[in-house]
């Protein structure tokens, strides 16, 4: 199905939104305004003529220095209609997006990954924590202005120092515990 045909179906369901067909070599691509994303996804999911019941993945690309800087990409799949669609949302460098978890439950982790890697905030996500990177990591590695070869001080913890007397006392304490009953 062509992108223009999908837009024709969508337009009356999401009145006032400006959809834009995108260039692609594989399957239809449409650009959706970020503030109408959830409505649009709900329509794509619920309309029987489209029936996009699977969200294959969510990802993003950083087009620094272009502005709007990011494109968040949703790959949708309609099993019943044997159809694929790429939904793209342009996001400025300080922008945010609504979460589409209310439409597809499986959007939670992919959105977390996009935040982890690109720092794009998904409002009302509810669980926007680090997913692949460690919890105390700074920065978002997939951004184009993030250095590739990064030198980071190794994180260590204070070595556990136990004197010989303490060690022996611990052993004795454990032995008493074991034989107490």
């Amino acid at each position: 199905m062509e992108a223009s045909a999908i837009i024709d179906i969508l337009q009356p369901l999401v009145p006032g939104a400006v959809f834009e067909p995108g260039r692609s070599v594989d399957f239809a691509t449409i650009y959706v305004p970020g503030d109408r994303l959830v409505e649009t996804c709900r329509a794509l999911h619920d309309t029987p003529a489209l029936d996009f019941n699977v969200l294959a993945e969510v990802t993003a690309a950083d087009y620094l220095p272009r502005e709007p800087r990011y494109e968040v990409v949703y790959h949708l799949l309609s099993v019943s209609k044997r159809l694929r669609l790429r939904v793209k949302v342009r996001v400025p460098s300080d922008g945010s997006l609504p979460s589409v978890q209310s439409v597809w439950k499986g959007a939670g982790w992919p959105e977390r990954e996009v935040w982890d890697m690109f720092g794009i905030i998904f409002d009302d996500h509810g669980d926007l924590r680090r997913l692949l990177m460690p919890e105390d990591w700074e920065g978002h590695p997939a951004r184009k202005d993030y250095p590739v070869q990064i030198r980071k001080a190794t994180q260590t913890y204070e070595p556990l120092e136990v004197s010989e007397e303490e060690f022996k006392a611990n052993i004795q304490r454990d032995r008493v515990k074991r034989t107490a009953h």
Partner: protein
Amino acid sequence: MAEIKTETMTVNMGPQHPSTHGVLRLVLELDGEVIQSVMPTIGYLHTGIEKTAEQKKWQQVIPLVERMDYLGAQSNSLAYALCVERMLGLEMPQRVQDIRVLIAELQRLASHLIWLGTHAMEIGAVSMLFYAIRERELLLNINELIAGFRFFPSYIRIGGLREDLPRGFHEAVNEFLDRFPTKMDEFERLLTKNDIFRRRTEGVGAISLENAYQWGLVGPIARAAGSDYDVRKYFPYCGYESYDFTVPTATEGDVYARYRVRIAEMRQSVSIAKQAISRISPAGVWACDDTRVVPPPKDKVYTEMEALIQHFLIYSQGFTVPVGDCYVPIEGPRGEHGCYVVSDGSNRPWRVKMRAPSFMAIQAIPYVVQNGLIADLVAVIGSTDVVMGDCDR
């Protein structure tokens, strides 16, 4: 009488646990043996392959992506190669497509053998692992034959294959394909009607088709719940539409159904591989004829100036890919294995992203095992066939 303790207990399972298939960590909240909640923690195997790929030339990414899903290595590189070829507008010769189909199916068999061995071992049939590994060894030998590398052959290249098939390839593949169905019968005699195995798997970790789709699960997990979605049938690539095979399905959606679906898939893979090997001539073309991408043959490099220049251009500067983006899904061993590539028109990819089936499967595990037993959790993880290299990338 002492008071009965009623609070729940929090237990760490993994990251170094034999049944977590690598380094998956699950924080379990337990009420006795019953799971109240699960919180998976992933990322222990995150190696930043997608970021590294942006620094490499197009053809240098192939060995990188093979290290993502290390059990189904060549399905990664197949997805990536198909994606870049689509952007370049390359058409592959029939023989290359047939060899790719054969490799993809052998890769599926190798991956499913590891799944079968580890899954059965975790449920208690330890001997199954040795039988499965023994058969996989023969498949690794075939990898060694074609590329000299057993795990990550990097035999599939952009624009075709690395080189022609070696002598003895047909004999090795035919020998394996003749031997394997009887081994499958042996495996099934051990497990399919095994009372202990069935009691551990039937009715455990069931997921409905609607929920599987909601969680983005496509592949063997969805097919065990009644879906007939298979990328090879729905969006054929490499000429899969010309092969005669069926898509095995089940309706129960539980661990045992996933086992039956994967076992039937292995038999179908043998059938496809037999069809493919009968189509492949022992010698012939192994790449397309596009000189931008495919390096000229070595004898020409030494005798012709143009070929020498072309050789140097490809290996020093690489080739460029038109501006745009492309997503190509293939049916990997674990489900839809997609590759999304963005090009800015230069000799390096702007962005490479793999759609990881294990990533989506682990996301759904807390939902599937809610209110089940810890022992069932082990069965469920085994049946989803997650690979942490695929999940964390």
